[in-house]
């Protein structure tokens, strides 16, 4: 049916019940079926980064960044990148495959679960992936003795909320994607800039001024990195209040948008 007020409804608050968890549980069950594959490769990736960039590249840098060794400096960046990748790819490629190729969403909405709850469950699962991925990397970083603040465990909380944010954004792309190839756009135009410009491998302050503004105002990862760095070392580039407010403001916006965009896409 053509919905004349579809535009107006794009920011409608979704009605959600406990059934969101059933969608989440489905994804947990699939994940746990192959948990070995899901846990061990992500464990190795940060080791490669720390070895290549921290030890290798860091040797030639020779200087400390803001009082930390280069390996230490990039540690929160690597954790944050994993948080971003885990959630963003789960809710783009992962959700798209479930929606389009497997028709899993169609099967679920024939039960008492609503489409809004399916999308919310998927986003919640994306956030869970961020916690799992971030947690694994955090454990590696801690094992290398790179952390100096006891607050570092709170990075898991940051992982969850950042994961929600990235998943919600990813889900908006999924709602707009005509085909799976479409994800090249967000991957190269959104994820890659964050990977290199988000304060991950060098301070945002060393960017040209225009890019500094861009990195802080537009790129979500900058704030995840900032919070992770603060929780690891007790100090960071930007005020953590700004980062918390930024994530807290942006996440609900994209969450509501994602649910409504997906509803519009799937209910025709």
């Amino acid at each position, binding site marked *: *049916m053509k*919905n004349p007020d579809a535009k107006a409804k794009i920011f409608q608050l979704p009605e959600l019940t406990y*059934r969101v968890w*059933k969608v989440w*549980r*489905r994804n947990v*069950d*699939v994940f746990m*079926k192959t948990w070995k594959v899901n846990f061990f490769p992500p464990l190795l990736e940060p080791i490669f980064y720390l070895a290549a960039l921290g030890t290798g590249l860091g040797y030639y840098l020779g200087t400390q960044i803001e009082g930390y060794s280069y390996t230490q400096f990039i540690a929160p960046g690597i954790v944050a990148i994993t948080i971003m990748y885990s959630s963003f790819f789960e809710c783009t490629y992962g959700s798209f495959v479930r929606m389009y190729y*497997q*028709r*899993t969403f*169609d*099967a*679920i*909405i*024939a*039960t*008492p*679960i*609503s*489409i809004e709850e399916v999308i919310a469950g998927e986003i919640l699962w994306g956030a869970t992936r961020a916690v799992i991925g971030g947690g694994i990397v955090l454990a590696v970083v801690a094992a290398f003795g790179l952390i100096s603040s006891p607050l570092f465990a709170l990075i898991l909380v940051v992982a969850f909320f950042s994961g929600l944010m990235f998943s919600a954004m990813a889900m908006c792309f999924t709602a707009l994607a005509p085909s799976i190839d479409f994800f090249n756009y967000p991957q190269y135009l959104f994820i890659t800039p964050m990977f290199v410009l988000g304060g991950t491998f060098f301070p945002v302050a060393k960017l040209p001024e225009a890019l500094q503004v861009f990195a802080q105002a537009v790129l979500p990862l900058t704030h995840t990195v900032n919070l992770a760095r603060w929780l690891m070392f007790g100090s960071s580039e930007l005020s953590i209040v700004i980062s918390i407010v930024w994530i807290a403001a942006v996440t609900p916006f994209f969450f509501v948008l994602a649910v409504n965009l997906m509803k519009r896409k799937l*209910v*025709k």
Partner: protein
Amino acid sequence: MVHCVLPLTSGILSVAGMNVSEKPREIKKMIGVAPQEENLDPDFSVTTNLLVYARYFDIPREDALKRVENLLRFAQLEDKRDVRIDQLSTGMKRRLILARALINEPQVLLLDEPTTGLDPQARHLIWDKVRSLKKQGVTIILTTHYMDEAAELCDRTLIMDNGKIIEVGKPAELVKKHVGEDVLEVDYDPEVLKFLQERFPEARLETAGDRIRVFTDQPHGVFEDFLKDFPAKGATIRNANLEDVFLKLTGRQLRE
């Protein structure tokens, strides 16, 4: 629309006295849906598909395990319980979809073309299951393009064309009403056609492809008599069926 996924375009739709726009969850709880497109969960085995689906309906695990056992038996999938979905044949998938639609013990079952693409054995197995569910008192709404399937299974048939209901009734009554008892088919020949028109002035003659079909509501035997006098090429006499009704009412143009 009946299972509360698509919004209504107009009018009011209620299932078991509940309005679909107001009580979608209550309705979805009591209906089972077996879609035409295979949407089993490829990430799970046969049993897990049913168990996860039971969870969507809030069925307690103990209860779900019992139901899954019964449904595996019902769908003759007991040997396949731990098999992944991509290793099932089309017929097995259809049976599993049917079993999945029954996990909540629905009062209303929606079957969307349940036998499309199946071999005769698999098709008859599904038919048997549908009949046994009918006997248990489940209301079944079945859509199909196979007129023999509709005639075989349905108590009431709705013929739809371009989204509009154009005829309603019991299959046998519809056949009698629209196409009569017997049909004579012969190979096309202008001579034969002329002759048939003279012999059966009241009958409906249809030429399609290279065949002539004669529909009459006269009693059995008239065509046999005719063939004795005039042994036309490629002649067969058969019972009129629901397919004749459908083609008469909707025409022979492709519906695309």
